C-alpha cells in the first residue's frame, strides 16, 4: 500500500514536471539549442584559433583578461536581472509600481543596481589581474586613459546587458525561462566574441558572425585598452563605442517601452 502510494506520488510529480517542461517552449528549445551551439562554436574556435603564435605574447592567461571581464559582467547582469522576478513573485513589484513614479522610472532604478554591481565586479577582475606578475598588461593608452577606457567599456556593456534583460523580462513569464534564454543567447555570444580565442584565425563565416556579436566590440575595446600594438587585428575604438552605445540605447528604450509582466 505504502509502496503503491509512493509510486503514485512519484508518477504524479514526474508527470507534473515533464508537462511543465514540455509546455515551456523557451525551456524546450534552449535546452537542445544551447549544447549544440556550444559544440559548434567552442569546438571550431578552439580547434582553429587557439594557436600560441596567434596570441599576443603567446600568453593565454593575459589573453583571457578582457574576455573574463566581459564574462563577469554577463553573469552578474543575469543574476541581477533575476531580482525583477523575485520582486514580482514577492509582490514588491506591485508596491513599487503604485509609488509616485512611472514604470519606466522604477525599471531604470532597478537596473542601476545591476549595472553598478556588474561594472564593479568586472573592474575588480581587472584590478586583480593587473596585480598578478605573470599577467602582462601593456596599457596601450597609458595606464590612466586605459583604465578609464576599461571603465567606460564595462559600464556601457552593463547598460547593454541591462537593456537586454529588461527586454527579455518583459516578455518571458518565468525566471527559469529567462535564465535559459539568457544562457542560450549569451553563451554563444560570449564564445563568438573573441573572449576565449582570437577571431583572426577563425573561418570567414565565423568571423562574419563575430562582427554581428555585440560582445565582440566590448572584448575589442578592452583588448585595445589593456594590450599594446594590436590595432591591425582590432575593430577600432570608434566603431566599438558606436555599436555598443547604439545597441545599449536601443535595448534600454525597447525594454522600458513595454510594461513589466505582473503575473
Amino acid at each position, binding site marked *: 500500500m505504502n509502496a503503491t502510494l509512493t509510486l503514485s506520488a512519484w508518477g504524479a510529480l514526474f508527470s507534473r514536471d515533464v508537462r511543465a517542461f514540455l509546455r515551456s517552449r523557451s525551456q524546450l528549445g534552449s535546452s537542445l539549442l544551447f549544447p549544440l551551439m556550444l559544440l559548434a562554436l567552442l569546438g571550431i574556435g578552439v580547434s582553429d584559433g587557439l594557436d600560441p603564435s596567434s596570441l599576443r605574447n603567446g600568453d593565454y592567461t593575459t589573453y583571457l583578461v578582457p574576455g573574463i571581464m566581459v564574462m563577469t559582467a554577463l553573469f552578474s547582469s543575469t543574476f541581477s536581472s533575476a531580482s525583477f522576478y523575485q*520582486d514580482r513573485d*514577492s*509582490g*514588491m513589484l*506591485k*508596491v*513599487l*509600481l*503604485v*509609488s*509616485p*513614479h*512611472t514604470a519606466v522610472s522604477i525599471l531604470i532604478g532597478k537596473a542601476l543596481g545591476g549595472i553598478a554591481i556588474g561594472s564593479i565586479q568586472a573592474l575588480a577582475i581587472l584590478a586583480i589581474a593587473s596585480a598578478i606578475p605573470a599577467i602582462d598588461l601593456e596599457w596601450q593608452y597609458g595606464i590612466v586613459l586605459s583604465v578609464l577606457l576599461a571603465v567606460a567599456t564595462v559600464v556601457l556593456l552593463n547598460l547593454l546587458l541591462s537593456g537586454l534583460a529588461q527586454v527579455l523580462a518583459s516578455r518571458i513569464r518565468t525566471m527559469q525561462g529567462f535564465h535559459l534564454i539568457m544562457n542560450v543567447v549569451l553563451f554563444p555570444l560570449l564564445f563568438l566574441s573573441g573572449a576565449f580565442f582570437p577571431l583572426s584565425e577563425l573561418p570567414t563565416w565565423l568571423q562574419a558572425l563575430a562582427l554581428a556579436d555585440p560582445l565582440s566590440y566590448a572584448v575589442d575595446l578592452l583588448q585595445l585598452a589593456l594590450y599594446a600594438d594590436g590595432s591591425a587585428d582590432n575593430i577600432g575604438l570608434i566603431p566599438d563605442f558606436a555599436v555598443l552605445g547604439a545597441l545599449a540605447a536601443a535595448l534600454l528604450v525597447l525594454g522600458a517601452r513595454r510594461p513589466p509582466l*505582473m*503575473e
Partner: protein
Amino acid sequence: MAQAPYAVDVSNVTVSYGERRALDGVSLSIPHSSVFGLLGPNGSGKSTLLSLVAGLRTPDEGQVLVLGRPPLPDVRRQTGVVFQESCLDPLMTLRETLALHGKLFGLGGDTLRSRIEALLGRFGLAERGNEAVRTLSGGLRRRLELARALLPEPKLLLLDEPSTGLDPDSRRALWEHLRATRAAGVTLLLATNDVLEAERECDTVAFLSRGRLVAQGTPSDLKHGLRRDAVLLECNDGSAAVISKAIADWPGVGTVVAAGQTLHVTVDDVSSFVPRLFQAGADGVRAIRMEPSTLEDAYFEVAGAPLRGDEEEPAS
C-alpha cells in the same frame, strides 16, 4: 487649491480581460474621510477596481479620478495601498522596508526616521525593527504593510481584503488601527467578502457581481426592505450537511450557509418554513432562532447569487 468633491470618483468604467468583462460600466463616488466597502465574491471585480484606483492599470472605457485627478504618479503620492497578498521583501528588515518606501515617496532625513520609529511603535513592531521580514507572523506582516502604506501620510488608503487570513486578535488590532486612521481624516476604500467587517466598519457598501455594481448604500439601507427572513438552525453533529441539502431546493428558500453545525437560512416566509421543516422531520435540528438580516442576505437579494464562491476574476 479647492478640494475635489470626492476622494474617489469612478465614472462608467469598463475593463475586459480578453472576452470577459471584469468591470462593466461601474460608477461610484466616495466622500472624503469615509469608509467605503466593495463587497462581492471572489472574481466579482473588486481587486480590478482597486487596481484602477491605485493606478496599476487604466480602464478600457470610463474615467477614474482620485482626489480630483487621474491616478498618475503625482496623485499616487497621496495614496496608500495594502494588497490582498503579502507584498514584502522577506530579506529586508522592517526598518529597511519602511525606509525604502519612504524614499520612494520622497521622504528622507529626520522626517523619515521619526515617522518610521513612530509607526513601528504604534504598530507594536519597534522591538523587531531590525529583524528580517521573513521572521514575522502573518498578523505582524499585515501590520507592517499597513504601517508602510501609512508612512507617506496618504489621504486615501486602499485595502484589498485587509483581514483575510488573520486570527481574531490580529483582525481586531488591525481594525483598531484602521479606525484611528479614518479618524485622522484618511478615506478608506476596502475590498472585502467579509460581511460582518463591511457591515460593522463601512459607511457605504457597494455590491459587485460579475463586474457590475448591483447596489450601493449604507449597510442599514441595503438591508432595509429585504423581503426575506433569516433563520438560524442549530443542528446536531453531522446533521447540518444533510439538512442543508434537503432544504436548499424548497420553494421560498434563498441562501443556506453553513458555519460548523449552524445553518444560516434566508426564507421568503418564516411562518410557512418552520412548519414545513417539522413536517419533513427536523430530527437533526436542535434549535431554531430568528436572526437579524445581514448584508449577505441583502447581497443575495439584489445579486441573485451567494456572496461566497468564485466568479473567476482574472489575476490583476
